[in-house]
């Protein structure tokens, strides 16, 4: 059964700093998603990663996928307060239509 683990669970960082959120998954997954969730809100899709070596960038966020290591990363460059949110990765279960979410990383960017 596919399991998705994120770390860290909580991240407090200063504005202007860089950091990386890690997403490990246990078995073959043919697609990996990153979402953002603000408190009391729904999920906003950030990135879809479909193949080994895929890299996507949007603003200060960059996501990558290494299918051999079963690892995806979300890198934050020069963090700003507006990036404060909870970030989830989710793996698509190969051969099915199930999506398994990680536990989330609660990011707080301090001014």
């Amino acid at each position: 059964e596919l399991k998705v683990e994120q770390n860290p669970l909580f991240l407090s960082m200063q504005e202007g700093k860089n950091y990386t959120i890690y997403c490990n998954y246990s078995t073959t997954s043919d697609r990996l998603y990153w979402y953002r969730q603000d408190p009391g809100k729904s999920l906003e899709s950030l990135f879809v990663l479909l193949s080994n070596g895929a890299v996507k960038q949007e603003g200060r966020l960059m996501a990558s996928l290494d299918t051999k290591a079963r690892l995806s990363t979300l890198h934050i460059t020069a963090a700003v307060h507006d990036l404060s949110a909870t970030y989830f990765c989710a793996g698509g279960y190969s051969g099915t239509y199930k999506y398994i979410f990680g536990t989330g990383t609660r990011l707080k960017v301090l001014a």
Partner: protein
Amino acid sequence: DAGVTQSPTHLIKTRGQQVTLRCSPISGHKSVSWYQQVLGQGPQFIFQYYEKEERGRGNFPDRFSARQFPNYSSELNVNALLLGDSALYLCASSLAGNQPQHFGDGTRLSIL
């Protein structure tokens, strides 16, 4: 274009009651998925429907059921409500089962 719409936004029920949650997908999307998100946790997959057929089911008891209508809207039903069913229920739609999902704002269900 309208996004995924869910109703109601909030709901309060008591233990043992039954509840029906509704979801309208983005126009043109044929796949609808349901998730349960307990406070402080990630969403947990409940069901996915595509073209009115169940394509995936998560590890939830039979008290949870769903269906998809010819217009691709969907209902999630939960019977014999328990306190532990209190959560945010999210609906997501996509063009097909393995395409990026777009989430609605959710229905917050509280069980007293």
